[in-house]
């Protein structure tokens, strides 16, 4: 198998496509890292809202989660792509569209993880914190969430890996990530087998190392 196409273009594929430095605004990592961080933060709010006592908070959050878990991510990307320019009446770069779509979509999944994590903390902890005179907010911030976070680690990492893989869909609207970079090179060189297998290996190295780190974290915890 001839690998010169990889050797000749590795800089474009890795530096531009994976990391995001180069002539295009792009990069898988430049999209994935903020999307994970912001999606998780929004997910915390949604997860907590689903557990709220007040119906007017709980029901919208539940509807949000059920809605986004029932539609494909591709659909959500197209929604954002068409609607944001209509609403703001100005063109938004692909990066903004992709990041918004991922944060909104993945927050529904992160929200479910947060909810399950909070529910896994035993009721006695909340009662003890209340007995000590802590307010609800303080109980959440200092007692429940830190413990919940520990229980969430495995499913959080799984979801991060899913999000990392999902960022490849940003290439549909023209964002130059690793997948799009391979497409660009392939249009010139026509070596699809080598190129797509190569980026598959690159994606695999990233996701597999993420899951290894997660395994190590879990072992240290127990």
């Amino acid at each position, binding site marked *: 198998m001839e690998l010169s196409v990889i050797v000749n273009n590795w800089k474009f594929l890795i530096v531009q496509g994976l990391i995001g430095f180069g002539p295009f605004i792009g990069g898988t990592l430049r999209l994935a890292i903020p999307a994970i961080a912001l999606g998780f933060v929004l997910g915390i709010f949604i997860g907590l809202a689903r557990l709220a006592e007040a119906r007017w908070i709980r029901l919208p959050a539940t509807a949000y989660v059920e809605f986004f878990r*029932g539609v494909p991510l591709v659909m959500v990307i*197209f929604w954002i792509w068409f609607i944001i320019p209509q609403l703001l009446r100005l063109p938004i770069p692909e990066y903004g569209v992709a990041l918004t779509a991922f944060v909104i979509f993945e927050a529904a999944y992160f929200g479910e993880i947060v909810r399950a994590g909070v529910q896994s903390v035993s009721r006695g902890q909340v009662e003890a914190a209340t007995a000590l005179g802590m307010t609800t907010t303080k109980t959440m911030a200092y007692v429940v969430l830190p413990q919940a976070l520990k229980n969430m680690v495995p499913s959080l990492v799984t979801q991060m890996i899913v999000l990392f893989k999902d960022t490849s869909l940003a290439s549909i609207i023209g964002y130059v990530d690793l997948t799009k970079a391979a497409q660009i090179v392939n249009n010139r060189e026509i070596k699809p087998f080598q190129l*797509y297998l190569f980026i598959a290996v690159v994606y695999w190295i990233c996701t597999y190392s993420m899951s290894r780190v997660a395994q190590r974290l879990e072992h240290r915890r127990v």
Partner: protein
Amino acid sequence: MTYTFNWSVLWSGQSGHWLLQGLLTTLQLSVLAWLLAIGLGILSGALRTVPFAPLRLAAISYVEFFRNVPLLVWMFFWYFGVPPLLPRPVQDWLFDHSAEFWAAVVALGVYHGARMSEVIRSGIQSIPRTQFEASVAIGLTTFQAYRLIILPVALRLIVPPGTNESLNLLKNSSVALTISVAELTFQTRQIETYTAKAIEALTAGTLIYLVLCLSIATIMARVERHYAIPGLISRAGTG
């Protein structure tokens, strides 16, 4: 916002026909890929628990490699990468018989087969080892023990996460639009292109996906209750 809604684009012209076509293609693609995924999932999931290292290793490599790479990459790989390596007559036949559809079936099936395998393996592993030992003790071969004891119980444990994964497959079939399979998302985009009514078209597509997913989830919840083994799975408190 200066957007004038015109919902009639959805039933005038060809839109309705396109949506129906898209829905049918999505269903065909999903069902075929699902069958492939289930087959691969059962095979590799079961192989990962057998006491013969090379088979286990092959199954583990399949699962770890395929599920950790984005589906979109697999779509491009199976559609653009693989056919040129096939013999000329096969290639010609493929491109006469909607190659993009079959590439999408294989991409979706092989990718979800690896994920299904994880679901199946955890189902099999949650069955106590003593069940297997008891079946061997009463004189069943390993194959018989799997076919008659382990798999019938495991399949019931697998239904809830398996449903979840099947719905993921259905939603992921939308990725096939990148290799121009005329499924539901593709047709939604087509309506948008022809009518310039993005919000109406996307609403129609989104609603169809929602109804599809929610009704499958409801049906499967019933099936789960029907086939649940009393005392083995407690459904109380789970959604």
